[in-house]
């Protein structure tokens, strides 16, 4: 079968699957950003226990594979009486895994803010929370966005794994159509191309735009 007739015949299926992938991606990004903020700040805490919790969490999630975490959440948690729907399990696994990587990025970003800014905020008698919220956090975006963009692409690639826990995403549909028709080159090729377009022409340009915006906000970019 010609590649174009293949697209015309199975395009709609791939489109709806791509929407599922995009959904999983968006939910996971939200969770991952939240987790990385919380654990990134916890990692910097002076309190030993808070820091230990964050360190254990981060090392644990970075030390095991995403696929194992996902399978554990989806197949083992029900044995403890906590059955989760596939979407929630997938989003939880992705968000928590990439949150652990993101926490390190976030921590590095906070540490990279010049010391004078901390001292200045203290000199102006800002409270600790206000110092973080008004002075430090707004300055870290231009620092953390480039590594965060890499992580975002990795996260998008990671969403392919949710097909293994029965969620009907791009990879799942590609596998299904491959099994039905044996047009392997077309189905997996189309899936690859869609992933590539999502990463290269939608996600990366958007994050570059955010980077420029963030740099301009702190007065560092070309205006």
């Amino acid at each position, binding site marked *: 079968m010609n590649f174009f007739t293949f697209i015309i015949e199975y395009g709609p299926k791939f489109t709806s699957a791509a929407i599922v992938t995009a959904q999983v991606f968006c939910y996971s990004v939200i969770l991952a950003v939240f987790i990385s903020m919380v654990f990134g700040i916890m990692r910097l805490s002076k309190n030993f226990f808070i820091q230990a919790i964050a360190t254990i969490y981060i090392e644990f999630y970075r030390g095991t594979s995403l696929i194992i975490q996902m399978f554990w959440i989806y197949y083992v948690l029900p*044995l*403890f009486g906590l059955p989760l729907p596939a979407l929630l399990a997938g989003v939880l696994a992705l968000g928590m895994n990439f949150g652990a990587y993101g926490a390190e990025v976030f921590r590095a970003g906070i540490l990279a803010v010049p010391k004078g800014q901390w001292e200045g905020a203290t000199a102006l008698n800002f409270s600790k929370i206000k110092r973080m919220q008004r002075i430090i956090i707004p300055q870290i975006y231009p620092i953390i966005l480039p590594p965060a963009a890499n992580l975002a692409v990795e996260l998008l*690639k990671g969403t*392919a794994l949710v097909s293994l826990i029965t969620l009907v995403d791009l990879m799942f549909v590609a596998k299904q159509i491959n099994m039905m028709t044996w047009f392997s080159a077309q189905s*997996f090729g189309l899936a690859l191309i869609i992933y590539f377009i999502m990463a290269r022409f939608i996600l990366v340009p958007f994050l570059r735009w955010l980077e420029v915006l963030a740099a301009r906000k702190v007065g560092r970019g070309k205006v």
Partner: protein
Amino acid sequence: MYVEWRWEWSFEILPQMLWATLNTFLAAGVGYAIAAIVGILFMLGQRTSYKIINIPTREIVEFIRSTPLLVQLFFVYFVAPQFGLTLSAWVCAMITIGLHYGTYLSEVYRGALEGVPKTQWEACRALNFSTSYNYRKIILPQAFPIAIPGMGNYLVGIFKDTPLLATIGVAELFFTANSIGAYTYRYLEPYTMVGVIFLVISLPTAFGIRRLEAAVNKAQGKVNV
């Protein structure tokens, strides 16, 4: 519904899991060796001044880097036979991992070469060294330490991605856990043990790489980086 952990049974399946861990090591090691070589090829392809070579190479690297390994695995596994190449699951897996991580390693190599100060190149030019002597004696000895942390991180990365190979039937650790689970309907112990085995191996490795990185930085006179 509550399932309790059965210790005696976990010790019963432990030897089987450990044997499978050897296969995981094999997959990660061979995959890494291929990736290291493929990475050099990609890096050379991107660095040549011939536009006919470096533009396509760059696009191929971008494409491989921004698509999921899982889909690539299935692509190679199902499409290669249609062109008359019947490959075993192992061969497919090694090719795909090699290509996928080769692109990442090419970036590491490129960064390392660019990390060597420009004055070093200029000094070589001024001293009239030949290109091969220049690379062998001046540039590579300085570039290699810069590349070590990145290369180490991707070694751990490959190791953590080997469970994906189970999806096309490579009999490594995760595959074994799956088949034990399918055979006995107990998934708690096999999956948890896989997680623990991964943690036990990858944490010390990552720690070692961090130590190595610090040592390299110190040796290069970059303290506190």
